């Protein structure tokens, strides 16, 4: 029976290429590319199989005992697949983009090696079946992303890398403490729908609240919850594909996803509610949403502005988790996917501006729409999505979050959503205005890639953002259809609130 091995294979499908790529000579470009793409497609195929199985109530579990009472568990349930498919799909796009972006750059073997490890860690995080497994891949993610952050090897990059490590390793340590403590109390806690801690004797409630705090703090570092977000804007020194992956799927999402797992499948949403843990979480998320947007307003550096926007957008997911009730859940989970698609589009575009015309600052973007219409179109779609303009992806998320807030009896959250939408508009619309309606300057800051016929920039740089931008539109328009992220999120919500 191969079923148990499918989750393991999904992990291996990027681990093995990564390890091989490490030791490839710098010049073996074609072999390297082939390995990357074969891995990416293999992963997608495996996930397709499992999607079908899970839809029909089938579960794929891989279990291996590391030590007595310490199992390594990979489980492909509905929630895992939501995240895995997102990562796998965006990995493919990002790999293509990175191949174009790093053309002729040094140390590409090292880069793609760690790039694959990074994705391995992400799918591992997605399919982790218990806290220990989650912790394992969470730490692997830290180690795999560090070399990507410092890839440029400049003093600035090294400093950013330092900050990044200081934050994430400390977060990992907290997560470890929480995990050991919880295992000591409840034995090994597998992720199960509805959670498993409700059964514990009531006198442990106090400890459970502390553990929850520790776990959320540990996960909040990667999820960039204020005030644990300090590393994220600094990590912007990394090459564009890395930022794209870090922000859309890998690191911040790992944190947010961890929070989802802890609330729904360790504590259980009802039990978390009864321990009065959800309200503080909602407040923390709301503060982060507002704070991130406010900071974004004042950034002139395009990537930094996007970074702060990530801080605020990821908090939407946490907010959705904290809203008690299926609608909030749906809103949070669907935003996990939508934010990924939209944010990766924006970072691809930012990378294109920088690579093609040397544009790094918002103030340099005047009239760029005429020089690079397609890129700017993609950027526009992403930005509108973020603001939440119907019928784009972002609108769906915010709609369900709003309904969830009412359902959970927290109407003040509506105010938060409204405020942040306004702020989003306030920091995105000026960019669009400059890009489309201001006259272009006589010369661009630094034009690397000249116009070639209809291609405003290198094809490998242009196609991925267009694809993801299109996706932003499609997932919004076809939200109601089967297999749309929304549909899948509903499926998960049903199962989480079964009891």
């Amino acid at each position: 029976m191969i079923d148990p091995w499918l989750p393991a294979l999904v992990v291996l499908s990027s681990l093995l290429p990564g390890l091989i790529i490490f030791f490839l000579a710098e010049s073996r470009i074609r072999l390297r590319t082939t390995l990357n793409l074969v891995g990416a497609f293999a992963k997608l195929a495996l996930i397709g199989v499992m999607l079908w199985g899970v839809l029909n109530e089938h579960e794929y579990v891989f279990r291996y005992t590391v030590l007595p009472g310490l199992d390594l568990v990979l489980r492909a349930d509905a929630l895992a697949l939501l995240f895995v498919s997102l990562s796998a799909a965006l990995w493919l796009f990002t790999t293509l983009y990175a191949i174009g972006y790093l053309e002729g750059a040094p140390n590409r073997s090292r880069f793609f090696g760690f790039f694959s490890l990074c994705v391995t860690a992400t799918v591992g995080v997605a399919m982790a079946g218990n806290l220990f497994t989650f912790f394992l891949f969470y730490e692997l993610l830290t180690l795999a992303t560090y070399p990507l952050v410092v890839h440029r090897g400049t003093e600035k990059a090294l400093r950013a890398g330092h900050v990044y490590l200081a934050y994430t390793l400390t977060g990992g340590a907290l997560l470890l403490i929480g995990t050991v403590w919880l295992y000591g109390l409840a034995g090994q806690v597998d992720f199960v729908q509805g959670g498993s801690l409700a059964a514990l004797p009531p006198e442990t409630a106090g400890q459970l609240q502390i553990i929850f705090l520790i776990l959320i703090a540990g996960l909040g570092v990667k999820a960039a919850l204020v005030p644990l977000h300090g590393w994220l804007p600094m990590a912007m020194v990394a090459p564009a594909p890395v930022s794209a992956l870090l922000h859309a799927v890998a690191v911040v999402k790992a944190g947010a996803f961890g929070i989802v797992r802890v609330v729904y499948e360790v504590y259980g949403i009802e039990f978390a509610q009864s321990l009065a843990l959800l309200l503080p979480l909602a407040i923390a998320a709301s503060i982060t949403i507002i704070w991130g947007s406010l900071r974004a307003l004042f950034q002139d550096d395009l990537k930094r502005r996007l970074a702060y926007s990530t801080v605020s957008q990821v908090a939407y997911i946490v907010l959705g988790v904290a809203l008690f009730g299926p609608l909030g859940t749906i809103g949070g989970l669907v935003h996990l996917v939508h934010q990924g698609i939209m944010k990766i589009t924006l970072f691809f575009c930012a990378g294109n501006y920088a690579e093609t015309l040397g544009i790094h600052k918002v103030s340099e973007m005047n009239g760029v729409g005429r020089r690079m219409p397609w890129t700017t179109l993609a950027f526009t779609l992403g930005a509108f999505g973020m603001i939440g303009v119907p019928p784009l992806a972002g609108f769906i998320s915010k709609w369900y979050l709003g309904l969830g807030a009412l359902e959970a009896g927290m109407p003040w959250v509506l105010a938060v959503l409204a405020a942040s939408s306004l702020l989003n508009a306030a920091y995105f619309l000026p960019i669009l205005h400059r890009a489309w309606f201001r006259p272009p300057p006589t010369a661009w800051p630094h034009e690397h890639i000249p116009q070639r016929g209809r291609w405003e920039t290198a094809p490998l740089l242009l196609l991925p953002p267009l694809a993801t931008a299109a996706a932003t539109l499609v997932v919004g328009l076809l939200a109601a259809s089967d297999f749309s992220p929304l549909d899948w999120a509903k499926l998960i919500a049903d199962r989480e609130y079964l009891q």
Partner: protein
Amino acid sequence: MTDFLDPLPWLIVLPLAWGTLAFLLGPGRGGRLAVAAIALQGVLALQLAGQLIDSGARVYAVGGWGASLGIDLMADGLAAVMLLLTQAVALPLAVYARGYFAAHPKGRALFWPMTGFLLAALNALFLSADLFNIYVTLELLGLAAVGLVAIAGGRQPVTAAMRYLFATLLGSSAYLLGVALIYGTYGSVSLVVLTPLIHSGAPLAVTLAAALMLLGLLLKTALFPFHFWLPPAHGGAPAPVSALLSALVIKATFYLVLRLWLELFAPLTTVAAAQLLGVLGAAAILWGSVLALTQSRLKMLVAYSTVAQVGYLFLLFPLATLVPPDAADSAVQGGVMQAVAHGLAKAAMFATAGSMIVATGRDDIGHLGGIDTRLPLTLFSFGLAGVTLMGLPPSGGFSAKWLLLSAALETGQWWWVVVMIVGGLLTAAYVFKVLRRAFLPVAEGDHVARVPRTLEFSAFALALAAILLGLFGAPLLDLLAIGRAA
């Protein structure tokens, strides 16, 4: 004829024999012989472990006399684990040393005979069940280690060796005095005979003996504040020697502390004493890590990291003394796992450090730029070893940390949790201090040469073993349980 092939005595005879033969062959010779012989020792150790799994711990009466008149050897799970570790570390290091001394001939002349005697001493020590015989093995071990430190000559190594010699002699003298008191009290030095005799009401002489023996062994194990001799000795010796010393030699004396504490002197142990050992361990972790962070020489950094990692070993005593048995078990398992994981990882780390020094021609962290492009496998191995020392999963270091952490939380001693977590973060700090340098491009005026393949792969094998230990640690724990009346 089966007696003739009994692995137990051969584990001691074989290294003595090939060490002597290597000396006979002449300066610098005997490397190939050593590799073959150590491989054979590995087979013997596995065979012995198999015997234990089949039929439990065994006692071996040398010369057929038996205690108390004769000397007994004893093989239980703990001894078997240490024997496996010793051969597992020694084999890749022997391969490494052949390549290293080919590229870097200083001190190769008598490396092989001394290493043979060193391994003989280790195997004999792990198997001995006779207090005085243990003293002899300690001296054999100590002199071999000192000789190896001085083997390359030069001011710093010879000074380090001198200091090391005084430390190790003082330690074994204290131990010998303890043995004298024990014999003077009971009239025997056999562990088998003595263990049932010692009870909580034992006379002052026995308590004194226990204190002296443990102190002597702590000095030899370089537990803070007795660590002063270790960094110069391990940092100054040739890389293969540093690896042997950090990975195995200090583990031998730790093994004795553990044995005496858990078995012979168990009735005399107190919570206060155990907490004291834990405090010293914690101090070692913090102090060693901080000093490692301030080093500018790569091998000194790794040496101070050993000072810190030794501290983790001693956290097991407060967690295993006078607590519920299951907590004690997981503490002991954690401590032994840490000994094994650190042995493999530290050997790998010193080996990779040696390769980097050979490649850059200098022992300076500031000049590691370009290592990642010229010696990717070496740097990767260093990273893997670092992961184990940090205690990140999946690695032997993590399994050890996990077991110790659970024991700490189970017995409500949360302060050790804090120490372990902080220690882990400090470890990350000094490991990445090296890695980030290695990621930089080659600096002007520097030149990074390639090194022999054997150097890269032998080190990688060690690092990989340290990682795999995290995934396949369960069988090791089963083996460890044999003969432990827990």
